[in-house]
């Protein structure tokens, strides 16, 4: 029995893995047949998980909805930080939009960064609980949606044009952050809270998430109205419901952490095997 078979069998539950590897050892099965045997069982087990509602909720609710809005929030934060860092690095001055004071800009970016950290951790925690053994797939998709969907949206709407880079570079840039600022943001505000949240290494962040979401939403809405005033209506602010909707959609998993009498927390906890 070769290492590849053992590696593939790691995708099975520990008990079943032992049984299957024992059967293969007893039959003297090895090589390609053993590999296909284990692979076949792994694929069947993975497909079976999709017959329940849990991974679908993870896929649609977290990867699709939360992931998309998290991507847009991260993108907005990246632009804000990039403006400040570039202005300071090149001209040693603060980047001042004129819309709000520098102090207010920093407070808003800080709140948004803290909120993104909390949202990522809470989303990743629920993603893990809902996905079970297909967590590797939903986790990968969550990363790709958060990392790429905002850029893809800009690209498809024609706001961004890619040119001058070789195709391989463009392909890699869709999977990995290739400049230091983007890498820092992805690592500290996405990768670390996502991994820690998924592994349950962070304390319950319910109050922090609610507070950060409220602060980020209010400051974001106020900024939109300040911009409307500053531009004499050239950039009209959306209604408060339209402003708050993305914050609600990105933070909805925190509702599943509330320990209420309706049993919501129990319904979303990891099923016992």
């Amino acid at each position, binding site marked *: 029995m070769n290492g590849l078979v053992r590696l593939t069998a790691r995708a099975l539950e520990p*008990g*079943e893995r*032992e*049984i*299957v*590897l*024992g*059967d*293969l*050892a*007893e*039959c003297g099965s090895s090589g390609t047949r053993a590999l*296909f*045997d*284990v*692979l*076949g*069982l*792994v*694929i*069947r*087990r993975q497909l*079976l998980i999709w017959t329940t509602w849990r991974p679908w909720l993870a896929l649609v609710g977290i990867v699709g909805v939360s992931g998309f809005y998290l991507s847009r929030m991260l993108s907005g934060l990246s632009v804000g930080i990039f403006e400040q860092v570039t202005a300071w690095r090149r001209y040693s001055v603060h980047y001042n939009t004129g819309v709000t004071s520098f102090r207010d800009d920093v407070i808003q970016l800080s709140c948004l960064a803290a909120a993104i950290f909390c949202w990522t951790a809470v989303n990743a925690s629920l993603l893990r609980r809902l996905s079970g053994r297909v967590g590797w797939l939903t986790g990968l998709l969550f990363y790709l949606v958060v990392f790429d969907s905002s850029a893809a949206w800009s690209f498809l709407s024609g706001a961004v044009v890619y040119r001058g880079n070789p195709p391989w570079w463009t392909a890699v840039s869709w999977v990995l952050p290739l400049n230091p600022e983007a890498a820092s943001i992805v690592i500290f505000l996405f990768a670390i809270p996502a991994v820690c949240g998924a592994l349950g290494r962070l304390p319950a962040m319910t109050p922090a998430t609610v507070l950060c979401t409220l602060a980020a939403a209010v400051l974001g809405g106020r900024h939109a109205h300040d911009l409307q005033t500053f531009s004499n209506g050239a950039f009209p602010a959306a209604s408060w419901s339209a402003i708050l909707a993305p914050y609600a959609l990105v933070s909805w998993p925190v509702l599943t952490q509330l320990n209420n009498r309706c049993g919501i927390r129990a319904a979303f906890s990891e099923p016992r095997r």
Partner: protein
Amino acid sequence: MLGEFEYLVISAAVRRGENAYGAAIREEIEHTAKRSCSIGALYTTIDRLESKGLIETWMGEATAERGGRAKRMVRVTGKGVREATAFYQAMTRATRGLLWEAK
């Protein structure tokens, strides 16, 4: 009603008796039905039969030839025997009087 592969698994388990477990059932099916039996198909079918209450499974002892790993033992329940009997009788009735000739 049972499916064809479910019937084969139950038949193999009954034939093996007290010594019915994954690898033995697989060998029995491949030997008697002259068809290959993948581990994936076997274990998902065993799970399905168990959830229907047609078989019972439990962890057996580990042996040296299995590298010290445990077996998943299988026992057919009374309900499983009745279902298999019904399947066999249905197939017998359905094929009575037919002469199959390969063309």
